[in-house]
């Protein structure tokens, strides 16, 4: 292969690279550049002055995603260890108490993700159904898409179920830990079956999908 042939090939290679990269760069009108943060701080100050909770972007789907750590009907559980208790029981409950709070947060986070994904899927299907029509190529193409969307949501539901079961298992262990503290310090051997189990059942039902 001669030198001129090599040059030709190099030139063609350059042209290919040029034409591949050109469309990508051409559309990029908004690019990062040195920021004027003084201006941004001015706007944030205005936000603080408002001092009100910002409204939801999409009242319907964002309303479902709003967190509520205190769902109606959630049972409470009595514990015998009170402040200034001389038995030194607080240490026993401390760890379990924190774990319980974290688990309630995780359950609610899981529900929020489910609600957002459910709304997104419903909106996709409603939109597709609306524009595809009932006959012709468009309808056929949409049918394939629709199946994919539903499959994707079913996969998500499986993932939800797995996480839900994992969290329930962890919650059961934490409640049993509290039950052990009750038994150790106050002789309440049946605390878990009287109170812990009721709470666990409520959470299981409330977050089941």
């Amino acid at each position, binding site marked *: 292969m001669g030198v001129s042939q090599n040059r030709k090939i190099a030139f063609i290679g350059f042209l290919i690279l040029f034409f591949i990269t050109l469309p990508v760069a051409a559309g990029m009108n908004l690019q990062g550049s040195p920021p004027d943060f003084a*201006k941004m701080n001015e706007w944030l100050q205005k936000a603080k002055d408002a001092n009100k909770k*910002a409204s939801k972007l999409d009242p319907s789907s964002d309303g479902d995603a709003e967190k509520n750590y205190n769902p109606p009907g*959630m049972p409470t559980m009595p514990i015998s260890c009170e402040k200034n208790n001389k038995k030194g029981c607080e240490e026993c409950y401390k760890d379990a108490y924190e774990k319980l709070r974290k688990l309630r947060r995780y359950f609610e986070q899981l529900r929020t993700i489910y609600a957002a994904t459910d709304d997104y899927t419903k909106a996709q299907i409603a939109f597709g159904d609306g524009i595809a029509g009932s006959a012709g190529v468009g309808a056929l193409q949409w049918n394939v898409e629709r199946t994919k969307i539903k499959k994707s949501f079913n996969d998500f539901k499986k993932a939800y179920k797995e996480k839900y079961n994992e969290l329930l298992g962890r919650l059961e262990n934490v409640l049993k830990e509290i039950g052990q503290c009750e038994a150790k310090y106050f002789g309440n051997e049946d605390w878990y079956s009287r109170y812990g189990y009721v709470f666990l059942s409520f959470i299981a039902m409330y977050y089941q999908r």
Partner: protein
Amino acid sequence: MQKIFFSFLLLCFVLLDGTLIGKEKSVMDEPKTYLIKLKKDPSVKSGKIAYLGGVTTKKGDNLKLPGLSIDQEVRVVLISDNPSKKAGMELRKFYWAKPNRKGVTNSKGEYMERFRTEGDVYIKVFAFEDNVPVHLFVWVSEPKLPPMKPVLVPKSSFGKRVTHEKE
């Protein structure tokens, strides 16, 4: 050798152009969007920010702000360098649906939106003529979690009304 090389080039072009190998465009395909990356900055007390500056057109530019939580407050500020050249902004929860919010810059060349949402947000920035210089600021607060009522209560107050605990 040359023939093989040019055949290979042709194949590359065919593969690069999806339409030639029958790739269907779905109605659900996302438009070409630029991802907004938020970062912490010492000049802003809390939360994360992103800044974009450049020129926009009548066709507009699509941006995506991903992974928001309903517990975060979001502020998006659009500023047109020249207030007489108005620029507009649309916010969409689902890109294919109608915009949830839209508006244009005011007489000072500013337009701001403030909201909370779960998931992604699509932001379209556009102008009424081509090559309008604009700035876009995005600020996302730290999550503010709602109060959590204790479920473990001292025996002495069991069954009585309890107050919320602060996060």
